[in-house]
């Protein structure tokens, strides 16, 4: 895959693998939470990581946030190797927005607390008055108006959607180039979600911030993301421009996700297997072979013995499946 014609990637993840030791101290079992993950994110681009629970999407977010160290592979952010960036700079340039807006904000401090602190740590050039002015501006940028009044409120006075907007304001305070958003809308009501998704689109186009949007919802990924990466059991099974992936999903797993997504505008498709559609496996001491094989309708003998690799099926649209790329 070449990116020469695109603008420069700000984040490059190269063959990153994270293995956890599981079981008691004598067991040598290892859980492959994410395996051989390679992707990049360009300037002012939203990339969606799509997958079910256990697909390894949060593991990738945690590696990028510096919470886990990758077992193998390398990460380059803003032209520097990951290990060379000091932690505060990394946190500032690549902050996190959390899933649960009810537990990620300290209830005993006013709304302004987190933002002002972030500004103090990351923008030491500002005076106290300038910090307050900057905080008001940030709150208004994410749609919490009037900013000066919002600054003085307590978190319990905000709704779930407003709290999540506050999460984005705090992330913006450190002047980031990339925001890691781990399921930022999944705890919110459907009617509130769209506002947050629009906010993410605005931040990309107006603030030129890139976002790694982690979700299990294909429709919202299509709505906000330029590109999407579909993960299954720790591996990338399909990636490409969002519209391409949704219009012509190639991997059987992407097709399964598409067919199970509830949409009243689509006709109801009776699935062959009405009961249990199966669940992603825990990848402990994996044998070679496609990890989707046990659930796959197109499975062939080869799939059970050989690892499939990503292959380009159309421009920048890659699929890891023998049945499709043949």
């Amino acid at each position, binding site marked *: 895959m070449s990116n020469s014609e695109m603008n420069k990637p700000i984040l490059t993840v190269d063959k990153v693998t994270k293995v956890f030791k599981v079981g008691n101290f004598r067991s040598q079992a290892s859980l492959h939470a994410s395996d051989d993950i390679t992707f990049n994110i360009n300037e002012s681009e939203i990339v969606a990581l799509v997958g*079910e*629970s256990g697909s390894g999407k949060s593991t990738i977010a945690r590696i990028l946030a510096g919470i886990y160290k990758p077992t193998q592979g390398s990460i380059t952010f803003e032209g520097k190797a990951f290990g060379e960036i000091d932690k505060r700079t990394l946190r500032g340039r690549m902050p996190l927005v959390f899933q649960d807006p009810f537990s990620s904000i300290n209830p005993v401090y006013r709304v302004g607390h987190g933002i002002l602190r972030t500004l103090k740590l990351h923008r030491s050039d500002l005076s106290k008055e300038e910090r307050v002015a900057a905080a008001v501006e940030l709150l208004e940028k994410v749609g919490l108006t009037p900013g000066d009044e919002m600054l003085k409120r307590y978190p319990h006075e905000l*709704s*779930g959607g407003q709290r999540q907007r506050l999460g984005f304001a705090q992330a913006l305070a450190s002047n980031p180039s990339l925001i890691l958003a781990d399921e930022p809308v999944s705890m919110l*009501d*459907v*009617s*509130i*979600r*769209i*506002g947050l*998704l*629009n906010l993410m689109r605005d931040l990309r186009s107006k603030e030129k911030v890139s976002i790694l949007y982690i979700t*299990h*919802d*294909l*429709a*919202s990924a*299509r*709505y906000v993301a330029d590109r999407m990466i579909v993960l299954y059991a720790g591996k990338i099974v399909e990636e490409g421009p969002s*519209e391409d992936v*949704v219009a012509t999903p190639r991997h059987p797993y992407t097709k*399964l*996700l*598409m067919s*199970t*997504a*509830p*949409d*009243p*505008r*689509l006709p*109801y498709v009776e*699935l062959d*297997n*009405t*009961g*249990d*559609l*199966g*669940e992603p496996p825990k990848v402990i001491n994996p044998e070679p072979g496609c990890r989707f094989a046990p659930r796959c309708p197109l499975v062939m003998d080869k799939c059970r013995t050989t690892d499939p690799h990503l292959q380009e099926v159309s421009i920048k649209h890659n699929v890891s499946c023998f049945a499709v790329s043949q």
Partner: protein
Amino acid sequence: MKSPVLQVRNLEVEYATAKGAAKAVDRVSFDLGVGEFLAIVGESGCGKSTLLFAIARLLSSPAEIVAGSVIFDGVDLMALDDEALRQIRARDISVVMQSAMNALNPTVSIREQLADTCKAHTDWDDAKILERSIEVLKMVSIDPVHLDSYAFQLSGGMRQRTMIAMALLLNPKLVIMDEPTSALDVVAQRSLMSQVQQLRKELGFSVIFVTHDMNVVSHFSDRLAVMYAGQIVEIGETREVFDRPKHPYTFGLMEAFPALIGESRELLGIPGNPPALVNKKPGCQFAPRCTLVQEICRQEEPPLVEEGHHGSRCFFSTDALKQGAR
């Protein structure tokens, strides 16, 4: 409509708060036929869970049922004492709670939890209890080996299906479900919905299903009721409501989620927040957020007008809605 198993008439529930009584359920009336699937959708705080709890008489202080009646199978539930209610619960009416993660006891095996329900409501011997436990687990496609599993050993989807198995132990006539799918991934969500549908057809129980995501029920429910600020603002056959929504709120909800197919366009959702339920303003509760609001809406409360079997609390017609929204 088929003969009703449940008739709710002008039900009103209030929460005592420091600022006065908050009317969480406001004059709600509907019928539920034998074997019918009714979905109730609405945003957080619209009173949908309170309504369920009121129907099952599970509310406790500071919530209080202040008016109305709930007739289940010819019996007025409001008039029953605790012992009579205990007889009806689980046997005739069972409830599947929102978060199966917390609803199952983590310290007791699935076998014992299923047996608990049987022992409390029947005089079955151990052999009969085991036989029935295996039967209900098989109904929800869970291998009976999991009888000796603990909740933490099951995946989210399996826990939720265990809850449904537990609800079906005594062959209830009515199963009340409070957001059973909202903690699940799309694939697990879809298999759960198909399973509920299949069981309902086989066993003939009625379902009241509460959710904030109307997409989830779009292909499964017979009728759909939309709640706003404690009131039912629209009720009708599911397909009819999706195809020809009459209330601007329903229209807004449907415009609030991104699609997987068709043109990708910017969505606006519903601006603003739901109103406070204390000291409600006169007129239509949706007026402050409504794009089609007229003078009359702020003064008079629109009645729930039914045409055919499709009712709506709005002074204006569907055509006016479509013109206004586009």
